């Protein structure tokens, strides 16, 4: 990250009674970035967002926004605006009043004409020009979400916080709003920090993703880095799905590491520079993404003899539940429809699959899920 950080958390932690919502955490977010905090509920992502917004105050550590220490500053003194999960629109104000609300305060004193202009601009930005006199109660979910966006950006904050902004929308609308969010981010040039539990949303929108787990940052990286090089089985399974199988290290063979699965099947893995040094018989966890399992051999792929347990039709592809020979736990494979003769796959049948050595991931055991 070369840009100047707009948000800096150093050693920030937060407890609620006995429960530690956030362990001491460091995080830097660069100017203009779109960063996503991703994780299941209770992982500390919302707490982090609320600490930055100023709705909660940290027990330890310091928070800096745009180079200023705001650790003890109330929300109304922070150059930050939030899009709330349930929008939190003021029910007794019209759309225009909602959007103009933040422009009426002293620090933001504008002439009436300027205010109307800014509100109109924001309405245009989110495509609600004709709705300014409506009450929030008379709007659809998608429209409310747009009003919430407009209200948050109209003050031109240094940082826009989005708390699960799309979670209350139905699937179709959500996909449309994802495109909108990306467009707004590009047009406004504001730093976006979004909280979500939806990995697809995070992958689609973010410059960087912060994966969180039980109050800690599990890994930070660009979407494809996280997808290609997850550091832990947890991240591997949360960003996309991953088959995780216990394995033991056998030995190095040329460019490959050999690992044995419990049932005796030996997999070859293309070694990477970043790999730690493994010891013989060291317990490991092997990870294979379902979409990297192939139906036909290519090059020096690992071959796996399996038996089909179940088939799930998913439109463009087939999801197969397969039991590798000698294994007790089944694995999943997503096979493109064009790649297989559908009639040839039915439960109980033998089915050979292949995995490229570069697609085998290895994790040290102990970090197992």
């Amino acid at each position, binding site marked *: 990250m070369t840009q100047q950080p707009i948000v800096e958390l150093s050693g920030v932690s937060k407890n609620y009674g006995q429960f530690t919502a956030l362990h001491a955490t460091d995080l830097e977010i660069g100017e203009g970035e779109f960063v996503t905090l991703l994780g299941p509920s209770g992982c500390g992502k919302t707490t982090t967002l609320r600490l930055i*917004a*100023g*709705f909660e105050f940290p027990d330890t550590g310091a928070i800096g926004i745009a180079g200023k220490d705001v650790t003890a500053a*109330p*929300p*109304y*003194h922070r150059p*930050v*605006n*939030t899009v*709330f*999960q*349930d929008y*939190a*629109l*003021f*029910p*007794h104000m019209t759309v225009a009043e909602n959007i103009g*609300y*933040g422009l*009426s*305060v002293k*620090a*933001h004193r504008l002439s009436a004409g300027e205010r109307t202009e800014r509100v109109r601009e924001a309405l245009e930005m989110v495509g609600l020009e004709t709705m300014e006199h409506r*009450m929030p*109660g008379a709007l659809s979910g998608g429209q409310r979400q747009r009003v919430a966006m407009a*209200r*948050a950006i109209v*003050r031109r904050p240094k940082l826009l916080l989005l708390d699960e902004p799309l979670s209350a929308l139905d699937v179709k609308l959500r996909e449309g709003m994802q495109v909108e969010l990306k467009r707004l981010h590009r047009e406004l040039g504001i730093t976006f920090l979004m909280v979500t539990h939806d990995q697809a949303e995070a992958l689609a929108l973010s410059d960087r993703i912060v994966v969180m787990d039980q109050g800690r940052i599990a890994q930070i990286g660009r979407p494809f880095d996280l997808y290609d090089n997850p550091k832990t089985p947890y991240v591997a399974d949360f960003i996309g799905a991953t088959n995780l199988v216990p394995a033991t290290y056998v030995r190095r063979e040329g460019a490959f590491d050999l690992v044995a699965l419990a049932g005796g099947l030996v997999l070859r893995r293309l070694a990477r520079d970043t790999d730690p040094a493994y010891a013989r018989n060291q317990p490991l966890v092997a990870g294979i993404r379902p979409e990297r399992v192939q139906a036909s051999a290519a090059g020096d792929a690992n071959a796996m003899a399996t038996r089909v347990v179940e088939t799930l039709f998913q439109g463009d592809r087939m999801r197969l539940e397969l039991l590798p020979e000698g294994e007790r736990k089944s694995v999943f494979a997503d096979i493109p429809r064009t790649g297989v003769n559908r009639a040839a796959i039915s439960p109980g049948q033998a089915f050979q699959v292949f995995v490229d050595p570069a697609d085998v991931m290895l994790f040290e055991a102990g970090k197992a899920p």
Partner: protein
Amino acid sequence: MTVTRRSLKAFVALFSLPFTWAIVFMVVPYLVMISISFWSRQFPLFVPDFQFGNFIQLFSDPQYTTVILRTLKIALLVMAGAILLGYPLAYFLVFTVTSTRWRNLLYMSVIVPLWVSYLLRAYTWKIILGTNGALNSLMVSTGLISEPLSIFLYNQASMVITLVYIFIPFMVMPLVTVLDNIPKALIEASEDLGVGPFMTFWKVIFPLSLGGLVAGATMTFCLSFGDFVAPVLVGGPDGTMVANLLQSQFGAALNWPLGSALATLVLVLVLIVLRLSSRFDRAGHVSLA
């Protein structure tokens, strides 16, 4: 409304009792009251008639207009007092007390007095404000005054104090309910948009609490408007209110037509207040969904 044959029986069984009750004990008495208000008095009794003399007397005789205006004034003061004391209390309970246990305890302590006899609660203030009462003892013992004063009791101020004390739960209850229903995210949103706590109160919390405020104001106003115990216990010579006047018309003065006219007037006044409050309430009503 259409009632099918089959449900007619069930309908009658379910509603005949409450309907009969309402008609026999509420509608009929009101009609009787209104019709008697047009009767005329012929000493020592009264005869059926249709004339407006009773109403004219109510509006022209200062003896009655004074009492009606005084009752209005006291009811308004009680309402205002209940708002000024009840609103901060309700706000404190909802937004300042973070522990649920403490909040419930404090809320109950506001409500529990309702379980104590009304008369007892009114009488308490006689003991507090009286010449040999708690207030005087305190002030004498602290040296604030040298002799007990008799100015605290038997005036309109003591009536207002007593009535505010008695009826304040009816202000606090609806206010706590509406304040508690305001999503905390709205307050956070306001502060997030750069608006400090004071303006957040005026622009978000207060407008959204108007429903409860109107309900509480209506109840405290109507209840104190018809009160007749406080005037007797702590009111003194210039404390007579409409309800006391009514009582005497049907009792000692034995002038039912005039009493009925007065009761009809009170009924109309209260209906106007209710009508105003429901309109005001609707104007401030918004869905919090």
